[in-house]
């Protein structure tokens, strides 16, 4: 082992020790309080129309280097609901307007991530620079989903803004145009991170993290992945997030990853074990009102072993708000749907008022709380009736869909 490898080894070990120490320390500290009022309070009070925007998951992970392997491509989803306030009773708008999105601080991705150089080898698709897998770019027009909202899917955003700064929480601007004239706008976070700390354990001196992973996979499973780079994990392991069917007899990606690592994480004795792989120690994607009250990932997602259960359908069998929240007259998810898919009050999507999973407002980060503060003058749940209504209704608030 030469001096260069020793230097790499020493730095990686130091990182492992320090990160372990930090995670133990962070787990024992008090929960963070929700972020206070933003300086943008009331700047986007709706007029003739209101628009509320939201990301579907609260965080999208992606890989920083795709030259050897890829777990997830750059792919993000932004939704919006448009409400017409100009006719007395508010009406959800699904046509007759143009809904645009743009991310002003982060307008290009091809130069920040090598996905476009390897998309053909990984997924068999050649993409134009800055265009994602669904044909959407970092700016464009949203399309009606048929579920009372508008969406731009597959936005290929990276966590590096145009100045070169790492920012996992960039703000998107969503504007609604009617007859070419802007009638409403809002801002919402399009969260993205590539802080997957595989290097905590996959740190063999002299080789990359990806090579270490592939080499270990080959050793354990008799594959030859190291010689087949770049490798797309979902090429063999089914992944509902990507619609990848996988190959027969091979466990789905979530089960394979969580079950393979669960016994190893326990040995490492990390309280917030999720941040070893999910973003992350720095990113802190679990940042919502639950976090501020002391609830961490495991409270909802239980254990890695449970998440990796082969019988579980990843991305479909997910925690339900109704598992904990019960209130007479309130329903939480629609039957058979997740929170992110559900609607309540007059077909308003839950996320529109409450925020995204992992970022249920009020969160501990100012950016997540911005939209609520802009449209209603205070942070937290968007619960000011005049956000959509022109006057406060006198009858009780019907939270459930269909009430």
């Amino acid at each position: 082992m030469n001096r260069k490898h020793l230097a790499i080894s020493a730095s990686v070990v130091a990182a492992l020790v320090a990160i372990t120490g930090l995670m133990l320390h962070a787990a024992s500290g008090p929960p963070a309080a929700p972020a206070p009022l933003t300086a943008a309070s009331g700047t986007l009070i709706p007029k003739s129309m209101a628009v509320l925007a939201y990301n579907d998951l609260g965080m999208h992970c992606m890989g920083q280097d795709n030259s050897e392997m890829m777990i997830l491509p750059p792919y993000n989803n932004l939704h919006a609901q448009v409400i017409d306030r100009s006719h007395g009773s508010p009406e959800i708008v699904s046509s007759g307007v143009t809904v645009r999105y743009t991310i002003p601080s982060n307008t290009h991705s091809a130069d920040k991530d090598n996905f476009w150089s390897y998309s053909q080898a990984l997924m068999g698709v050649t993409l134009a620079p800055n265009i994602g897998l669904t044909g959407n770019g970092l700016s464009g027009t949203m399309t009606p989903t048929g579920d009372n909202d508008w969406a731009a899917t597959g936005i290929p955003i990276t966590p590096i803004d145009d100045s070169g700064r790492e920012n996992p929480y960039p703000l998107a601007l969503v504007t609604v145009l009617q007859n070419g004239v802007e009638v409403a706008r809002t801002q919402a976070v399009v969260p993205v991170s590539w802080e997957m700390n595989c290097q905590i354990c996959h740190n063999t001196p002299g080789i990359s993290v990806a090579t270490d992973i592939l080499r270990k996979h080959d050793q354990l499973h008799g594959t030859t992945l190291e010689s087949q780079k770049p490798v797309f994990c979902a090429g063999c392991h089914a992944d509902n997030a990507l619609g990848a069917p996988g190959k027969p007899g091979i466990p789905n990606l979530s089960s394979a990853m969580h079950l393979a690592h669960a016994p190893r994480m326990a040995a490492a004795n990390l309280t917030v074990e999720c941040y070893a792989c999910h973003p992350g120690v720095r990113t802190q994607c679990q940042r919502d009102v639950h976090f501020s009250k002391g609830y961490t990932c495991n409270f909802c997602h239980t254990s890695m072993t449970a998440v990796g259960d082969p019988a579980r359908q990843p991305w479909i069998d997910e925690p339900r708000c109704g598992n904990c929240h019960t209130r007479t007259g309130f329903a939480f998810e629609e039957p058979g749907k997740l929170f992110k898919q559900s609607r309540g009050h007059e077909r308003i999507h839950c996320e529109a008022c409450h925020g995204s999973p992992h970022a249920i407002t009020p969160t501990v980060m100012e950016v997540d709380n911005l939209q609520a503060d802009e449209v209603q003058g205070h942070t937290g749940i968007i619960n000011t009736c005049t956000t959509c209504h022109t006057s406060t209704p006198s009858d009780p608030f019907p939270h459930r869909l269909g009430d």
Partner: protein
Amino acid sequence: MPVETVCSNVRRLMILAVLLTCPTTWGQQFSVVDLGTLGGPMAGGFGINANRFVAGYSALPNASFHGFLWDGTLHDLAPLAGDTQSHSFAINALGQMTGVSYVLGGLTSHAVLWQQNASSYLGDFAPRGINDAGMVVGCASSAINGLGWVDRACIYSNGTLITLATLGGSFSYAYDVNGANQIVGMSYTTGEAGRHACLWQNNQPLDLGTLGGANSQACAINNAGQVVGVSDTSAGNPHAFLYTVNSSGQVTARADLGELGGGWSYAYGINGLGEVVGTSNSRAFYWKQGSPFDLNKRIPITSGWVLNSAMDINDNGEIVGLGWYHGWPHAFLLLPAAPDFDGDGDVDQEDFGHLQVCYSGTVSQTDPTCWNALLDGDDTVDANDVKVFEKCRSGPGVPAAANCWR
């Protein structure tokens, strides 16, 4: 006399004959320096001055990012009190560095000036560039009724922060400023319809236009008024551009710098000699004339590096950026190197022998062991490369001059 010797001698004569007639072209090989990290797994270099001081940022063992100064040694530029992250982006001739201090997920960034082991809080904005007079440019965020929380290009000078006007849209960003206080960046246009490269002349925005496509962004400007950045072409592909603006800020020349493949390129930095650096097809590139070339072909093939993005270049031709070092994201520094192919410290006939072996004429040289012989910036080893070699020939035992090619 063996046939091989006859042929070799004939080739030498032909080369010498060509030397008398072929125009001089430039060419360069580099040695590559890993700037290291502050203990974490990654780092990136963003700015370099004439003294070879580098501004950038690195991960720490606790996963936070801190700005750094590299002057042969890596120095931690910690965030301001109350913040958790910092990035250092630019450094001027005086060694003044500017960058940002912030909390992830916060709405407000804090501008920092680092100089001589001291840091100064400049105000609530996100700096990105600094000129030799200490003028700092970047963007400041604020709430505007009806528009929301918007970012606006700004300048900070002599203790005063000034927000600049836009090209009609809500958002704008300033990335660099030259000695004439010409500021470049990007601004949204009216109705947020598009994003255009923008030059602020006497603090007034001027639309620099595009290469025919919808959007553009200016990233850097030198004292000669040469501006680099990226623009959509008429085909919709983002290409690195080089514009020239006069003292009034009017564009007098436009050039599409081309790309290395993949259909895209971005220019990030330009020095006083008009040498441009950037990235194309995930490869760091250099451009002086003609087409850009891949800097990965100009470093030792056993270096362990994949150079991804070249971010800045100083007037000595020294380049900083981000790349993958044995698979880890690190900051690199490229130092011009003489064509001392055998590594004995001189440039002599022994080194010329390597050039002869690699001679390819009009055919592209695809042998990686011969990429270091591509001295003139193209992909063939021919008489023009010999010309460059002759400029650098120092003789047996005579130390080679690293900048012999300039």
